[in-house]
């Protein structure tokens, strides 16, 4: 009985009662759309968590439905009763993770991946230096240890095709930790570099810093920052994720900064919810709250500073694929579109159902390749209908996924995928006079 009580606490059993089973989440859920089963819908998953917490089904029965959730949070945006689906999902992931019997070897692999690999800038740099996905084949072991019933091969070759060419290691090393604008700074911004963003898309990070500088901000890159912890939390490693949060909070509270800016929708979503990790009223909760209040996406800050003008028209037809975590967790939807429309020459054509996830979802597209591609196919149908020359996104995962989508359609010659920052840089931004 006591065991059941512990299980209920872990599974966030109480939160499942907020769900009135109205089903309004069904049309919003990408996996319900592609997998065509209530089992793979938010309402179905919440019900299964409840059933498991009541001891009616086993944790084993819960495993596949939980693992196959993208965590895109589209359901929370449409939910009329504000069910905390994210907390329920994370609780389920953590419980499943804790209940799993693992071999020594896979434990070691995970230990390395999550403790040393993602949080380490050294490793991330190595990763960035050309062949990160091959080195990351450890993910395969993670996937296996998660006992996924239908484990697909990792298709790493597919992803490798779409990785941008990398800067030389010396260029990475030369990056400045502090960038001053011309004249008196309009704001002091700490830049959160992110792990995948900083390795695979190092150049986009450089451009992001440049945009902030051109907008009149002083930009600093706190030295002791680490991975945001999103990938850890999504893999059920909540404890580790919390440790990383504490490190980041410490790293960003040294100087008197106005904003903590990131350019990766997924990281931003994690950063902005750091306070949820700590109990209200505690010192860490207060510190986290002070942190989250400063977190902003690059698009929000650029719109707020409103200090750029664009000198080179980009005569392109653009469609925008918003990152799920920007839309559903950070609730940032307008600023990126505003910025796109500020670029002279650009024609923005919205696709049908832009808020439908692209299927990237952290490492989902690696561990659940086939399912991810089903979702990507749906996305590409809508993308293709707009006939774009450029697809703009705001998250590294989405960017890679859209590149992959274009590649799979055999359109890599005609259609480009850009991070919003890249599009802005194409238009030769300069300070407003």
């Amino acid at each position: 009985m006591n065991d059941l009580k512990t299980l209920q606490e872990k599974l966030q059993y109480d939160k499942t009662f907020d769900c009135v089973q109205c089903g309004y989440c069904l049309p919003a859920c990408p996996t319900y759309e592609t997998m065509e089963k209530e089992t793979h819908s938010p309402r179905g998953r919440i019900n299964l968590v409840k059933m498991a917490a009541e001891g009616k089904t086993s944790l084993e029965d819960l495993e596949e439905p939980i693992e196959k959730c993208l965590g895109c949070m589209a359901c929370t945006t449409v939910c009329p009763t504000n069910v905390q689906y994210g907390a329920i999902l994370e609780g389920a992931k953590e419980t499943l993770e804790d209940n799993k019997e693992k071999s020594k070897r896979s434990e070691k692999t995970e230990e390395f991946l999550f403790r040393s690999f993602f949080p380490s800038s050294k490793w991330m740099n190595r990763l960035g230096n050309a062949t990160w996905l091959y080195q990351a084949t450890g993910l395969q072991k993670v996937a296996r240890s998660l006992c996924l019933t239908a484990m697909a091969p990792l298709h790493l070759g597919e992803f490798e095709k779409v990785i941008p060419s990398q800067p030389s290691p010396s260029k990475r090393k030369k990056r400045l930790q502090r960038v001053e604008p011309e004249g008196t700074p309009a704001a002091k911004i700490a830049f959160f570099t992110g792990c995948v963003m900083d390795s695979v898309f190092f150049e986009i990070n450089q451009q992001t810093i440049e945009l902030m500088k051109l907008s009149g901000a002083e930009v600093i890159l706190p030295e002791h920052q680490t991975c945001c912890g999103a990938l850890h939390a999504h893999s059920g490693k909540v404890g580790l994720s919390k440790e990383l949060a504490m490190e980041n909070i410490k790293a960003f509270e040294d100087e008197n900064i106005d904003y903590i800016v990131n350019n990766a929708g997924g990281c931003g979503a994690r950063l902005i919810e750091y306070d949820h990790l700590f109990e209200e009223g505690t010192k860490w909760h207060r510190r986290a709250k002070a942190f989250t209040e400063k977190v902003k996406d690059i698009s929000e800050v650029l719109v707020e500073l409103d200090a750029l003008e664009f000198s080179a028209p980009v005569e392109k037809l653009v469609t925008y694929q918003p990152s799920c975590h920007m839309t559903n967790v950070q609730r940032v939807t307008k600023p990126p579109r505003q910025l796109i429309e500020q670029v002279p020459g650009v024609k923005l054509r919205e696709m049908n159902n832009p808020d439908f996830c692209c299927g990237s979802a952290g490492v989902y597209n690696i561990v659940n390749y086939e399912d991810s591609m089903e979702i990507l196919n749906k996305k590409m149908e809508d993308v293709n209908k707009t006939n774009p020359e450029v697809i703009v996104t705001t998250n590294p995962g989405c960017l890679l996924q859209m590149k992959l989508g274009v590649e799979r359609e055999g359109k890599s010659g005609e259609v480009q995928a850009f991070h919003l920052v890249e599009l802005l840089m194409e238009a030769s931004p300069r300070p407003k006079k």
Partner: protein
Amino acid sequence: MKEWINELNSFFSANQVLTEPADRYSYSFDGSFGEYLPDAVVQVKTKEEVVHVMKTANRYKVPVTPRGQGTCLSGGPLPVKGGIVLDTSQWPASIDVTPDDLIAVVSPGVLTASINQEVEKYGLTYPPDPSSAHVSTIGGNLAENSGGPRGLKYGVTKDYVIGLELVTPEGEIIKTGGRTIKNVTGFDLTKLVIGSEGTLGVITKATLKLVPKPPAVQTLMAVFDEVELSGKAISKTLTSGILPSKMEFMDQASVQAVENYKPSGLPVDAAALLMIELDGRAEAIKAEVIQVEKIMKELGAKDIVVPKNEEEAAKIWQARKQVSPAIAKIKPTKVSEDATVPRSKIAEMMERLKVIKEKYNIELVVFGHAGDGNLHPNIMCDKRNEEEMIRVEQAVGEIFEAAVELGGTLSGEHGIGTMKAPFMEQELGSAGLDMMKRIKDSWDPNGIMNPGKMFPERDQKLVLRNE
């Protein structure tokens, strides 16, 4: 594995027959109460597949419960006797509009809101608008005879169905009605099937009647200090020659809940709010607005709001939509009723509800489609508190009694399902109920079609507790 499941497995492709525990649990509930585990879920996509399921089930005498998207609030898609859940939600959507005949022929898995989107292209509309229209399937709406706020002017689902294709419990395909508005050939089996809650067969196709889309709409909101006055205002409006498309009611508790949840500037000290929508030609509406304003004022409305643009109007309707989530903050479990009374009895029903609320010491909130007498008394409680749930069960019973005594009905739009079955005889009388049962028995001699619904079993009582 059971023999009939093996037989289904050999006919269907692997992903159409679901028997894993996770899948079975995922089809064990709907938007109401209770949880019943099916032995298998079959996801059908053609009428031939439905025929096969029904023939197999009939041979083995296995219960079959049809299900759309499971948004039902009365338990219609719950497999209370186990067996098969027949899921039609993945049936490929087809909406075939013939604008010259003002009809649309649709497949059962189509989302109701999609029908409207499609027919609007021709300047037409399909008026029934249950709040769940963007999630619920037309098949489910037909089975439950769903309503919605526009029922006042336009009626409910059954008023827009002129023909059906149906698979009987014995696996035969039949057609009812046709494509013409007038049709008096034989018994009206179409109307019999609509609202039969999946107890007579599986609907596989429907021919729907469409009407021209009204060119303009105008919203009004009237604020009252007394509930009774708002009731009178409803009657006065409806007898003055004006027929609004919506007339919605919110009591003080629901207003306050909305304002606590997502403030939208509603007057929290009002005893009652009426939200009215007029539709038709712009010139006509203009005159009607003045008339409605006058009526509301004469009956002592404290304030009348006439939104100047669509945005302001949307804000009022948004507030109305927030009632359900807002009251869910009071307590987690929501017992949502749809007792309906003649319009002249609304004020009296409100009085009865107040007494019931005090007698059982429950959190009772009232809102709903007042223009057609379709109130939604909602009791907010906690499923985990058994003592409270017993009080709620008693209160719900008394709400039904009150509705029937005032000349009303158990259900205006949600259906009978499992919850209201014990009260059927009270409304229909024993001979009336028996006649319905005889009809059911002749359609379904083996009693396999959605058993346990609508007809009470011996000594069946309302139960809102799982254990």
